């Protein structure tokens, strides 16, 4: 994706997307762009957030037309090279003790198989990767961590998992993983 893409998200939102798949520059761009929208203090903007590769904003379309806000987002996009943005300050390294045995890892074999790894290699790979919180979402406080080695780029499950316990470590799409710690 050469330039970022601006799309509507729902009737009253915009999504500014910096990549088709998770990457370090796209995630940094999303974080920096959201911070810039917050700093701009536009009165019709009611809320902002980020996903892995996008900045999102919700606004009041009765106050400002979609086209006008999109124009402002366009101008902000062109004002700098967002993919070159530095990481936010004040980051910390956490070590999260994780159990991969028995009932604690009901889908580990399935995931390892999809990644073409043995169970032991899968555990070693997941434990060696140093990841960063790319975004928080889906459920309250749930961090999406990335990136994992390429082997973990495995397809999504066809059905929703009805219940994932707090503390579970899950592998999501594009080598990002999600940590259910809510």
């Amino acid at each position, binding site marked *: 994706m050469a330039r970022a893409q601006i799309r509507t*998200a729902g009737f009253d939102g915009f*999504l500014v997307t910096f990549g088709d798949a998770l990457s370090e520059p796209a995630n940094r761009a999303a974080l920096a762009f959201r911070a810039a929208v917050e700093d701009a203090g536009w009165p019709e903007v009611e809320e902002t957030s980020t996903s892995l590769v996008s900045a999102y904003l919700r606004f009041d379309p009765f106050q400002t037309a979609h086209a006008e806000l999109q124009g402002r987002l366009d101008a902000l996009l062109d004002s700098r090279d967002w993919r070159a943005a530095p990481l936010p300050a004040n980051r910390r390294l956490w070590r999260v003790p994780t159990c991969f045995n028995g009932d604690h890892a009901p889908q580990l074999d399935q995931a390892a198989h999809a990644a073409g790894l043995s169970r032991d290699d899968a555990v070693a790979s997941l434990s060696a990767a140093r990841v960063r919180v790319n975004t928080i979402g889906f459920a309250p406080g749930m961090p999406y961590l990335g990136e994992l080695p390429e082997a973990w780029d495995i397809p*999504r499950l066809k059905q929703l998992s009805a219940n994932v316990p707090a503390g579970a470590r899950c592998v999501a799409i594009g080598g990002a993983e999600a940590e259910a710690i809510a």
Partner: protein
Amino acid sequence: MSRAIIVHRASPGVSVQDMGRPGNLTFGLSRGGAADRIALREGAALLGQDAGLAAIEMPAAGGIFEFTAQTRIALTGARMRASLEGTRLAWGASHLVPMGAALTIGPAETGFYGYLSVGGGVDTPEVLGARGTHFAAGLGGALMAGDRLPLGEDPGTRTNMCLAPEQRFGGGTLRFVASAQTALFGAEELARFEATVFHRDIRANRMGSRFVPDGDGFGAASGLSIVSEVIVPGDIQVTGDGTPFVLLAECGTTGGYPRIGSVLPCDLATVAQAPAGATLRFKFVTLDEAMEIETRHARTLDARLAAPVPLVRDPRSMRDLLGYEFISGVTDGRTFPDGG
């Protein structure tokens, strides 16, 4: 002592709800709040109070409630069989409930979510700036027999008012706009989506409703391999088996299934209120059309809420007739209460 509601029985999923907690998406917390916000506004209009006050949301059926003091109530949303000490109460109306009387709210007769609003609002402690239960986030929980909910001060006195009913309880046509992934589905799939009749599945909750198509499911070109993205209430998320879910107030904040579009905010109450089996269709509209539809809806709703009318009751069926004060004061004709 402050007034309270005593819950003697509550159907599964009955909870305190308000307008939710906007502003927490960045922490992964969706706004939540009432599944049918229009019903909450109707309750507030009937009681002449702020629509931000908390009420009781009742999915599919209500329960038995008692009040520790005389209390004004309003019954809105999905019409449920309600009675006060055996006398049937009109739905979509406000009533005065005497202290200690048993208010029984049975199953929904149309729609899905009924609402019990009270004068002064339910005054449980705020968590993160609101009182609404957010089941997915573990904020609050379902009401249980024995619960006692404090009520706020009620300066109002008006009761026995009703509002013109609105048709949003039996499915219908949902207008939707393009969303981030609409283009992935292609024009042909989008046209087939619009031409398809859907039935609301039994799988539905405050997070979203599943709609089963008459015919084949739907799919996006890139299928299950798109990166997780922001999701918002109204989004029509198509899961791996091709069945759409329309997301509601308590949906997650990000999701990885492709979305074919996003239902307009003004049609979300229709999504929430569609009972299992209800027939629905989807109609694509442009952003400009959406703006017109939303503007018209807001204007019509404001006008309707501004004009509650007295509930016409037949005195012969009023078991509580003698409970009314027919003379509100006496003077000797020379002095007046204000000293004039």
